């Protein structure tokens, strides 16, 4: 195939704006997958994955398309992860393309995340094909959404395509436009080889599978290849292109998209953004844009049943195989026992991992309050990275502490701007500017301490904007900040799992809330329990749980015995969910309730 007949593109869309349905239609229209296979795919996916070692999750797929001009084209559709925590992965997918379909829901209009990804695509010099989807909806506001798109990308009215993926409308036009508008890939097939890894996954039978876009040169099966950033050399055991299954080819050359299996045991060796070169025709420089993906949010994960510790470790190991952004290391808590300190790209990533551990691995977890990584600078001039409040050096040793800041954009209907500014102020937001996308929609730019948005910020934002505002962020830098460690003490003993690092202005409110929550949730015991919040040795909030003074069932006759016995059984069951902290028994719900803020 001539390079002039290859088109590499991706789809930029907000969740629910119809990306997968549209992708399905494209696959059908190009006869890449028949309608029957579509269904089979769902039904057989588990067996298929297991038996033949292929993946169904669409990282990328190659379509053949007979255009109206009579020529045959290879269309490579590259998938982009769908949410805010994976901005970096999105940027690598974009870097593998020459063009992008911008899909906007005809009823919803453009959302913040779409705008961010769109700007990223424009920065990568991608050709944008705007498509308004779901035009069949009664609530579709086609003209309004058209205007939004024109305002943002400055295209002409007639360049915007109209479609309904659900109804199959507008699909041929999209395919034609891809061929016409998106440039063919450049790149010399004889030049020193450089291929970009835009995604990778772990296959139990074949090891790490890297999804690549060859930018220059050629990779042949059997060649020695080198990963630029890890420096490791492997043999390219197999290369090929991606259809419903992986299809073996002898080689992949500049402009082509496909997979490579090199016997790497772990996705750590096939990091997204890394560059692959060949040993016999090596490039001297990696492709631009690689960076180490670093966790942004940390939380302790503990099995509520201590017997499940090994199961948790095994589950994390498995998830880690496919997710190089997941970080974990053993952690011991006096309160919660043995568990793991885990690092995540963001809150959503954290929620996904926790949910998968609970659902797929049937683990019952207690999680601690998530925190960002603080940098503590000591008086002797060293920097300590603190991803766990317990590891903050003694206050007297600290010269100052820095916390991570993000830049963010909040896209909202203009009427909610006031609410959002109030919320931003509450969260220590630093206002940058406001862009009006059109008369009714504003894009607010703020800088926030990351710690302020990892905690129920998104929910709050949604609730004060009736669900209309959307939010996108990116790490900016570390800045000095007046944060303190707040400890929670039960009868004088600190509960390590409840310690947090907070801004000093917020410490009192946090402490008071946690004390109140605990007072509500810790059952009364035979002795009085003092719940205190303290900064260093200074107690800033306190609640007391009074000792039980009289706790006696007055009547127990023939009809009461079963009921009383059942209560004992229930209490015994409940005891399993209690953590013994010193003399005090604390229900696990208490740890979870603290998370709810």
């Amino acid at each position: 195939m001539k390079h002039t007949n290859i088109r590499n593109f991706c789809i930029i869309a907000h969740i629910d704006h119809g990306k997968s349905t549209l992708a399905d239609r494209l696959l059908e229209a190009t006869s890449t997958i028949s309608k029957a296979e579509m269904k089979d795919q769902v039904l057989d996916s588990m067996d298929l994955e297991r038996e033949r070692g292929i993946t169904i999750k669409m990282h990328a797929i190659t379509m053949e398309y007979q255009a109206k001009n009579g020529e045959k084209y290879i269309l490579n559709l590259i998938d982009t992860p769908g949410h805010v925590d994976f901005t970096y992965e999105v940027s690598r997918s974009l870097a593998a393309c020459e063009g992008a379909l911008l899909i906007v829901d005809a009823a919803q209009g453009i959302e913040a995340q779409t705008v961010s990804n769109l700007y990223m695509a424009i920065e990568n010099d991608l050709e944008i094909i705007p498509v308004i989807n779901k035009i069949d909806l009664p609530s579709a506001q086609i003209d309004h959404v058209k205007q939004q798109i024109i305002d943002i990308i400055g295209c002409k009215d007639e360049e915007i395509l109209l479609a309904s993926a659900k109804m199959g409308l507008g699909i041929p036009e999209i395919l034609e436009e891809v061929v016409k508008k998106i440039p063919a890939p450049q790149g010399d097939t004889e030049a020193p080889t450089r291929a970009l890894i835009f995604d990778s996954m772990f296959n139990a039978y074949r090891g790490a599978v890297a999804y690549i876009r060859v930018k220059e040169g050629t990779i042949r099966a059997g060649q020695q290849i080198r990963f630029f950033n890890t420096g490791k050399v492997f043999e390219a055991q197999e290369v090929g292109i991606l259809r419903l299954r992986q299809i073996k080819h002898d080689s992949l050359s500049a402009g082509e998209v496909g997979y490579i299996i090199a016997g790497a045991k772990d996705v750590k060796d096939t990091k997204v953004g890394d560059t692959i070169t060949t040993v016999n025709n090596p490039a001297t420089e990696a492709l631009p844009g690689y960076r180490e993906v670093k966790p942004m949010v940390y939380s302790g994960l503990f099995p509520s049943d201590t017997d499940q510790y090994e199961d948790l470790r095994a589950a994390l190991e498995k998830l880690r195989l496919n997710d190089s952004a997941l970080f974990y290391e053993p952690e011991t808590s006096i309160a919660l026992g043995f568990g793991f300190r885990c690092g995540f790209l963001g809150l959503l990533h954290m929620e996904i991992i926790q949910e998968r551990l609970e659902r797929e691995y049937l683990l019952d977890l207690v999680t601690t309050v998530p925190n960002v990584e603080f940098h503590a600078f000591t008086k002797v001039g060293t920097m300590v990275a603190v991803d766990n409040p317990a590891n903050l050096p003694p206050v007297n040793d600290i010269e100052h502490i820095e916390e991570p800041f993000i830049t963010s954009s909040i896209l909202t209907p203009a009427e909610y701007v006031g609410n959002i500014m109030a919320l931003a102020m509450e969260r220590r937001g630093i206002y940058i500017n406001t862009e009006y996308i059109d008369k009714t929609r504003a894009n607010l730019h703020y800088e926030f301490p990351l710690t302020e948005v990892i905690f129920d910020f998104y929910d709050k934002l949604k609730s004060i904007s009736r669900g209309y505002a959307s939010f996108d962020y990116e790490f900016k830098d570390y800045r000095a900040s007046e944060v303190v460690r707040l400890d929670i003490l039960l009868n004088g003993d600190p509960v390590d799992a409840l310690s947090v690092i907070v801004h000093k202005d917020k410490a009192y409110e946090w402490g008071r809330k946690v004390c109140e929550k605990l007072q509500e949730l810790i059952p009364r015991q035979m002795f009085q329990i003092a719940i205190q919040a303290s900064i260093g040795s200074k107690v800033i909030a306190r609640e007391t749980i009074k000792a039980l003074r009289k706790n006696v069932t007055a009547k127990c006759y023939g009809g009461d015995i079963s009921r009383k016995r059942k209560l004992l059984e229930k209490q015994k069951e409940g005891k399993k969910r209690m953590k013994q902290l010193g003399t005090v028994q604390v229900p696990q719900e208490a740890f979870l309730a603290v998370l709810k803020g």
Partner: protein
Amino acid sequence: MPDSSALYIHVPYCKRKCNYCDFYSVTELDSKKRYFDALNKEISLYSNKPPFALDTINTIYLGGGTPSLLAPEEALLLLNHLKWNFHITGRVEVSFEANPGTVLQTNLYSFLKAGFNRITIGVQSFHDGELAVLTRIHNGEEAINAVRLARKAGFENIGIDLIFGIPGQTPASWRESLQRAVDLRPHHISMYGLTIEPHTPLGLAIKSRQLSRCDEELERDMYLKGIEVLESAGYEHYEISNLALQGYRSRHNQKYWNGNPYLGLGPAAHSFNGIQRWWNCANVEQYCQYLDEDLLPFEKKEQLSIEQKCQELILLGLRRKEGIDLQQWSQVASGDLLTSAEPVIKELGGLDTRTLPFKNSKHNRLLTVLHKRLCLTRQGLLLYDTVCEKLAQVI
């Protein structure tokens, strides 16, 4: 020494339902005839079934509801029917519950003649205001009269019930009620801390803050005061809420706490045959329908596991002055309770073997051991539920 079994008959009728009451009863008396037919049918069905067909029975208890609402001839027929169908032998204790508001002298005498030899009167309080809070149908004076009438009618075993912890009750009014009780010198006194069930009218009134719950500290003091006053008047404290003159403990109720079998008849009545517990449906109409079809009217039956038997040994044993029989425990649990519960007992503050059961521990401990029985001290009584919970966790 195996004791005889017990019969309980639930009479599900009341003149008016008290706001705190959690027992099954109805105020419509129309179904009474049907209820009696069904009850007689139930008695006949069980009379053919072991173990109760073969067991000897020496206590009968009519509870409610308000058994004193029965016409004397109904009560007589019922007792005769029971005697006809079961082996009721020896010195039989036949009790019935009476509401002071339903008691007339003639009635009481007829009950005595019919064969009832023990009456337990639901006095609850001698204080009119407190009785009004509890929506009782009688006042304090009627309560006093009821006890006198019972004595006059010839009852030689009279019990009364008292309640403390009533919203608005004061230590002084409680002391007054206790003094009245002592002056009347019944043979048996039960004193119950008011249990507030959330779904009762009282529970709802407290939830909506129309009434306020008695302060825990106050209730504790009332309980301790009750024990003190009644003990010094010569009553023996033999169960958490029960005191009696020498020789007048409730034989029937002790069977529940000792783990003896009992057969409960009537809607919502519970039964126990030593291995299984079951209970009848709590609905007169449904109860009657079952029996119309010659079916036993029970709603649920449970077979006790060893673990459950152990739980019951704890929760029943600790209620009694005699405590948990450690030898019996070893037989059931095949292990030594004091050994397996050692850490829990320690957590509870340890044993004070120099204190007698139900008596004040100078060292403020909750448990004592006497004659190979694990018993609560006075301090332990106050935390019975907590002690049960902790001990049950070692099973």
